[in-house]
């Protein structure tokens, strides 16, 4: 993976925000067919059947706490994921066009189903961003680590397909019922979209290693013991981190900066302890400024860190991701040998 790098391109946040303590919690009993029809369109099947399915799925989600927010205000979108993704995509195309880069593939990543349920968001992006000739598909079912799974797929594509030099990754999240914004005491999710470039030649950060560590999702969902699950997730991040630094011959002390997900401080602290990295090496401005944005956290924090932290060529960054039943660690080396203009 020596010749592949990533560049955060853009993120999009809705203009509307809601106080965290006013975010409605969604319960299986409180979620009605009328609520489904208020938020969702283009079901294909009968709304009652879709509603029954969502209620069953909702019942398997552990309750969240509104006190879990890392910010006072939560970003709330009025439009579907697909629209948010287009906003981030249009912003992302500005530097790509300026640099004259051609995109051979577009991957859409998300942890939330689009409320315009029958649309193909990757196809829409391919059309709207005028990426004619590019393949376009979705990588998902990895929760808030869907961005890291998409990064894995893009890196593999560039590694083995000579004709692919640039892959554009775009993700979007919107939490409308039946999705609940609050999950355990880890986070309250805001709505957002993000975009990054994975490239053979033009990048800001060299992707040295990417490890995604899967565990039993069922156990992570069924336990009611938040402390136990937090400890388990921290150990899972540590396993991914240990594997990654071992692969490239580093020690924990070689890491200049950690980009964690913008989740609750208890979880971040547990991760810091397990990975044996001082908490002061963790970039926490993102969680303070924007709160948890799911799959957008990676881009938001890469953009923020580039602005807030002075990095030297050769500095190592560990970007962590957590989701129900999986953890991710991307080791990035700062060193713009071929920076995106």
């Amino acid at each position, binding site marked *: 993976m020596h010749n592949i790098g990533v560049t955060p391109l853009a993120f999009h946040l809705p203009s509307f925000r809601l106080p965290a303590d006013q975010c409605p919690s969604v319960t299986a009993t409180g979620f009605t067919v009328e609520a489904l029809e208020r938020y969702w369109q*283009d079901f*294909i*099947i*009968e709304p009652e*059947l*879709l509603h029954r*399915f*969502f209620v069953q*799925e909702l019942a398997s*989600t552990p309750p969240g706490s509104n006190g879990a927010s890392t910010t006072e205000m939560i970003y709330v979108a009025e439009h579907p994921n697909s629209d948010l993704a287009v906003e981030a995509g249009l912003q992302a195309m500005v530097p790509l066009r300026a640099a004259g880069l051609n995109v051979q*593939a577009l991957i*859409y990543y998300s942890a*939330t*189903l689009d409320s*315009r*349920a*029958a*649309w*193909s*968001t*990757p*196809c*829409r992006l*391919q*059309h*709207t961003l005028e*990426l004619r*000739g*590019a*393949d*376009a*598909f*979705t*990588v*998902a*079912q*990895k*929760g808030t680590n*869907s961005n890291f*799974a998409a990064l*894995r*797929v893009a*890196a*593999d*594509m560039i*590694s*083995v*397909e000579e*004709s692919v030099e640039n892959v554009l990754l775009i993700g979007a999240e919107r939490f409308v019922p*039946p*999705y609940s914004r609050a*999950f355990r005491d880890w986070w309250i999710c805001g709505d957002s979209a993000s975009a990054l470039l994975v490239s053979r030649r033009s990048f800001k950060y060299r992707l040295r290693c990417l490890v995604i560590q*899967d565990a039993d*999702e*069922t156990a992570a*969902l069924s336990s009611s013991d938040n402390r136990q699950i937090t400890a388990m997730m921290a150990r899972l991040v540590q396993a991914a981190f240990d594997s990654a630094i071992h692969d490239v011959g580093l020690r924990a002390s070689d890491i200049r900066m950690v980009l964690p997900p913008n989740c609750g401080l208890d979880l971040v602290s547990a991760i810091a302890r397990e990975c044996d990295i001082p908490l002061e090496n963790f970039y926490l401005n993102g969680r303070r400024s924007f709160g948890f944005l799911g799959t957008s956290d990676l881009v938001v924090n890469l953009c923020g860190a580039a602005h807030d932290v002075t990095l030297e060529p050769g500095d190592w960054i560990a970007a962590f991701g957590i*989701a*129900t*039943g*999986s953890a991710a660690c991307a080791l990035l080396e700062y060193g713009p040998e071929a920076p995106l203009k």
Partner: protein
Amino acid sequence: MKGTGIGQVAGIRAVTYHLPPALSLEEWAQRTGVPQGALDQYQDTLGLRVVHAANGETPIDRAARAVEELLDAEQIHPESIDALIIYHSLYFLAMEPRTFAGQLRQRIGARRALSFSVSGQHCASAMAALRVARNMIAAGNARTVLLVSCDSFLGSLRREIPGITVMGEAASAAILQAGWETNRILTISTHVEGALYKGLTGPAKDDERFRLMYYLASRRLIRKTLQSLSLKIEDIRVIIPHNINWPSWEGILSGIKYPPERFFGDNIDRCGHVLSSDLIVNLTDAIRLGRIQKGDLVMMFTVGLGAVWGCSVLQH
């Protein structure tokens, strides 16, 4: 159009599928109130006979049944699977934080596997998933990848794509393995017409545009795919199709001048269009029926709403 030719790195070791019970089209039409005229069109013009509809079986049960049959038959230990990739046409398989991929991973005991899904191309997601799996192996990140398709209508019998097809449910499983000599993937090509992203819910003009483009894009992609391998259409022993309907294939086959007797259309009648599972269902049956012999070149071709055309060539 993009060809992705990385020959020799991986082959499809084994395939299987699971179909829920079939309803005759007459019974389906009676239960759903589809008028006789439309039924006649589906049967007489489009050549469709049945629609598969799960009767209480959950999607995860359906997928697990296909996977367990495959692993048993091949004596593959679940812990030898490096990646589990789910692909599907419809969107309602699971609602995160619960994932279908994660639940199936746990159910089959694939404890080492990285699991996720590839979608967004509707019925052509099969081709994107195959590409992702092949690349994981070629990049050295996996040796054994389990590809699973599954679609569910959650008990609904609303199955029409009006005037085009009737949609069924199924699950399929395929093992892609590094260095496997059978069904080696020689190339995978796709073509995306993103303007048609609204799929089933698009305006009438999108439908018209899709119909206009359908044959032209199909012929072009097949020609490009063959060119990328320096092959001619007569080199292809069998075409493994999607099962949308007969007339669409008659149009494509005449356009590319392919002998109809070498086209594996048996399942258009027998099981109809089972969405993302069509290709693996058909490949399984073509192999079982002896329609593919060692060394034969096999083309798999599919089209998904959105709109995406996908084509690959395997050597059996």
